[in-house]
């Protein structure tokens, strides 16, 4: 952990060397996800409700997913850019060091500019938290925090799988985008609006609904089932298969030789 903090401070220092460039990228990131927000805004003002969720409820869901995704991307960027690491032989260097490979990949990159997205998510939260009509008792606050933490973990798990698949293909697989970027884009709305089948898929195969949909129902008072509040914890288990795929990948690894 101390070592990771050390890595973090180095990354922060190095990115702060180019301050103007850094701030511009942050603003860019902010505006990028702003167009997604505009999409929701115009759709919800036209239709008022979708699947009986109101605008401010959808915003709550949108902000939770956006926070989780941007945190996961901020810290898990090393996995996202992993194909480059295999391509240029960087991973060979990692393997000879006496530390866990996964730790080193995790620490190899930190994308601070993702703060732009985070800022936007927080602004949306600032609007949606009072507007959603939720009475913010302790259990609701805990639910929201669990949703976000679990979201970070599930998205990071997806980044790990994405990276692990690079061991077999040496290139990033575009198809994984449907779960990472797609999870962000389609997670703007509660997953039930896509229908029963999709909801099941995102519950049992890719557990996005565990942190996005079920606890969300509890949060807005659509369900009293306290089990729903704790479902995000099950999302943590998702890391086990992710880690297994990673391990298989490492064993399978052949250097590209460059």
């Amino acid at each position, binding site marked *: 952990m101390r070592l990771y903090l050390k890595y973090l401070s180095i990354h922060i220092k190095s990115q702060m060397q*180019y301050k*103007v*460039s850094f*701030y*511009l*990228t*942050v*603003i*860019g*990131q*902010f*505006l*990028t*996800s*702003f*167009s*997604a927000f*505009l*999409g929701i805004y*115009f*759709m919800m*003002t*036209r*239709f*008022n*409700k*979708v*699947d009986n969720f109101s605008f401010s409820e959808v915003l709550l869901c949108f902000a939770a997913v956006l926070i989780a995704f941007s945190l996961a991307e901020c810290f898990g960027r090393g996995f996202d850019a992993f194909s480059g690491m295999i391509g240029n032989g960087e991973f060979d260097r990692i393997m000879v060091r006496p530390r866990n490979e996964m730790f080193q990949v995790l620490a190899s990159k930190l994308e601070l500019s993702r703060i732009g997205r985070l800022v936007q998510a927080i602004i949306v939260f600032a609007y949606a938290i009072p507007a959603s009509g939720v009475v913010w008792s302790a259990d609701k606050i805990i639910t929201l925090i669990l949703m976000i933490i679990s979201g970070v973990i599930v998205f990071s798990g997806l980044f790990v799988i994405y990276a692990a698949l690079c061991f077999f293909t040496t*290139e990033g*697989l*575009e*198809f994984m*985008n*449907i779960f990472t970027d*797609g999870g962000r884009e*389609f997670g703007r*709305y509660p997953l039930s*609006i*896509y*229908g029963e089948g*999709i909801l099941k898929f995102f519950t049992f195969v890719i557990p996005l609904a565990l942190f996005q949909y079920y606890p969300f129902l509890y949060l807005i008072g659509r369900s009293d089932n306290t089990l729903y509040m704790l479902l995000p914890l099950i999302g943590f288990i998702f890391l086990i298969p992710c880690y297994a795929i990673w391990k298989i990948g490492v064993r399978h690894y052949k250097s590209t030789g460059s």
Partner: protein
Amino acid sequence: MKKYLSFFRIRLINGLQYRTAAYAGIATQFAWGFMEILMFNAFYNADAAAFPMEFSQLTSYIWLQQAFLALFMTWFLDDEIFSAISSGNIAYELSRPIDLYTMWFTKNLAIRLSKAALRCMPILIVAAFLPRPYGIVLPANFLVFSVFLITMLLALFTVVAFCMLIYIATFYMLSPLGIRTAALSLTEFLSGAIIPLPFLPDNVRKIVEFTPFASMQNLPLRIYSGNIAGSEMLWSISLQVFWLTMLVLIGKLWIKKALKKVVVQGG
């Protein structure tokens, strides 16, 4: 003319080599389109009366959008050009007896066309076999289809002409990434890539439809399904031709000005 044609051919053939990447892309685009349609379906079920176009028009819009994504996405830019500008390799390009604007333009056209050619057919075929109203429907008649093809080509030109302005702007900016992503994401929204323009409130939509961005994917995709027809269609096409000419003119004048000032640092 001949030299630009051969640039075009080289790029096209080059682009057609990446078939495995294309298969992965097809699967992604298909899943993406499917999810989009389910999302709009939920809104349709929420309030069908507020739906601004027929549902089958929307599904055609989305499948065509996914099939021809490579033609229309404004953020799909040629990194070679950016690195040529920032690394100074552009000096070599300048010493050749070619027009830089025309060369970049044809290169971009070829890259986009090759990408789209590999991807569009499988998506369109599968979408055609999906049950109504989730699949793609045939256009009303042959005339509509030919107008669709023509406006799609013009839309492609418009997109590339717009991207040229972004390349040229790089001459003036040292760290263009932030502004670029911001501008492009707004462009995406205005061109109807995130939600089709009819879903905007009327007063906003009317303004957006005057901008060059509405001449990109918005126009051909809506002509295909008959959402834009008659006099509105003629008006939109003239606007499209106008914006295309403007963008090309601005680009050509601007690159001339930029190249006069360009200082290639040695090394």
